[in-house]
């Protein structure tokens, strides 16, 4: 059985934590436990929130005691089957033009790569969606190539535009809304990751993402299609096998 520990987070939530590293296998275990508990519809569980290597379970202690909940989790963990190849595969267009990527030059300076080399290195991997958090629909995607891994800005920006693609350490995020941000903005994605009208997120934990570089002109065409409601984005397929 995969090792885990249960940490208290007050009287209405607890954390099931697997180890102390960012790892796709651990993340798959988190998602498997979340799906299992969600599917069981246990009275008293309010919601589960999967993150990189831990699962928060929010519960109503007047309905379900912490000890009963921990027993449920223990039972699930004994028979946990994890699958790293679940989810959808997405191709997300990204414009890396400096006009939409305020930090591209600075990242180039810090990494000693040209802008073109950064685009090539950033758009090469198939990213894994570890979790959603911070803002509605915001997906944390890894891993950014080690040679592009940078610490966060010392002074966060008060505001970056919605759709900004930014990197920090080994993670990439597309920020779905205008927000303060301490990450390095290297592009802009025209695809809305959060649909205000339907209140749904495009990406889900476990999905895989490839970033497809597009020109400013193509970005503008897509962005205007989105604003007119004329474009729908669908996954290019299911994740099959042990995706990279």
């Amino acid at each position: 059985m995969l090792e885990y520990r249960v940490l208290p987070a007050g009287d209405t939530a607890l954390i099931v934590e697997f180890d102390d590293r960012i790892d796709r296998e651990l993340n798959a275990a988190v998602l498997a436990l979340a799906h299992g508990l969600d599917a069981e519809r246990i009275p008293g569980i309010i919601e589960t929130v999967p993150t990189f290597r831990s699962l928060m379970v929010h519960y109503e202690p007047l309905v379900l005691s912490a000890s009963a909940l921990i027993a449920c989790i223990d039972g699930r963990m004994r028979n946990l089957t994890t699958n790293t190849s679940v989810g959808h595969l997405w191709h997300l267009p990204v414009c890396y033009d400096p006009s939409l990527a305020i930090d591209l030059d600075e990242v180039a300076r810090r990494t000693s790569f040209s802008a073109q080399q950064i685009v090539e290195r950033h758009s090469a991997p198939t990213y894994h969606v570890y979790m959603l958090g911070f803002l509605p629909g915001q997906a944390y995607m890894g891993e950014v190539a080690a040679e592009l891994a940078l610490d966060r800005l010392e002074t966060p920006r008060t505001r970056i535009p919605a759709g900004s693609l930014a990197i920090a350490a080994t993670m990439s995020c597309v920020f779905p809304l205008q927000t303060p941000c301490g990450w390095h903005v290297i592009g802009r994605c025209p695809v809305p990751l959060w649909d205000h009208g339907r209140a749904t997120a495009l990406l889900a934990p476990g999905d895989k993402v490839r970033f497809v570089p597009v020109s400013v002109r193509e970005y503008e065409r897509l962005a205007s299609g989105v604003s007119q409601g004329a474009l729908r984005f669908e996954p290019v397929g299911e994740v099959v096998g042990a995706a990279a």
Partner: protein
Amino acid sequence: MTAALRVISPGLSTTLQDLGRAGFQRLGVAVGGALDPISLRAANSLVGNPVDSGALEALYVGPSFVVEADDARLSFVGADAEIEIFADMDAQSSEAISPMRSIRLQRGQVVRVGSLKNGAILYIAVEGGFAVEPVLGSVSTDSRGQMGGWQGRALASSDVLPLRSLEATDRDEYRIEGLDFAPLRRVRVIPGPQSDYFSQTEIERFFAGEYTVSAGSNRMGMRLEGSPIRHSRGFNIISEAIATGSVQVPGSGQPIVLLADHQTTGGYPKIATVISADLPAMGRLPIGAKISFVPATLEEAVAARRKLATDLETIGDKMVRISLPSAVVATRLLECNLISGVCNGAA
């Protein structure tokens, strides 16, 4: 005819809030909702609304607005505040009322709420509620997520907030008595989840210290100032989900208690979590309030939660009919209205 409140001045930060939108944190959506759900329920009870209806939550400085409905019943619950009722926009004199009561107001009357005292929050509920579409099951304003409430933001001057009821029902006014709003001084917490990021000495320092609510506080978090807490293993953890009431300790060592609008995930170690029964009183604390933390067991926390739930079920028993009917106030104001001859026919 429509019914609305037209905002003259929004106050410092006034938002529409109900009990929040649980169930979507996995999508990155904050739960949000009233910082003090006890006062919200009381405010709704006073106007006969379901207790989980949306109401205005004013922080520190209240709003001013005009009633643009034939008549409307409002209630005010929370901090001490001077609430002035003017006969119309041009009236020079006003009637002052205290919070913790309902009142029936006529078209054109102006309500001006001043600075709040002895508390951070005042709720203003309207009989029938605000005509705002819920987002993900809630009308709470999510300012970070830019959704819910009134256009996903705090109120601004000239906003016109539509009401569901065109007029108030014919009934007496009530006040609510016996709510315990004594300032919270000893905040009960359950240690963890990251107790192992702090030495025993630092945990003792946390429980021994006195902390002051500082001016950087908002609906996302209450920033505290006091004896800084040192980390023994750095101050970055792998981002994980956050529970409301988490006491996170960033690099500065000054704790932040995460409140209703906190982001869903974050990467600072949390030394303890405020028990759920103490969160409403926590939300009421104004800048400058002094608190200390005391450890509680899970059993104590659940018992306190059960007691709070029972108290909330019987909150209606605390309502007392106002003996001098507000009609007296209303009549006097109506006389002012006739004297000035102003009829505000907007909306």
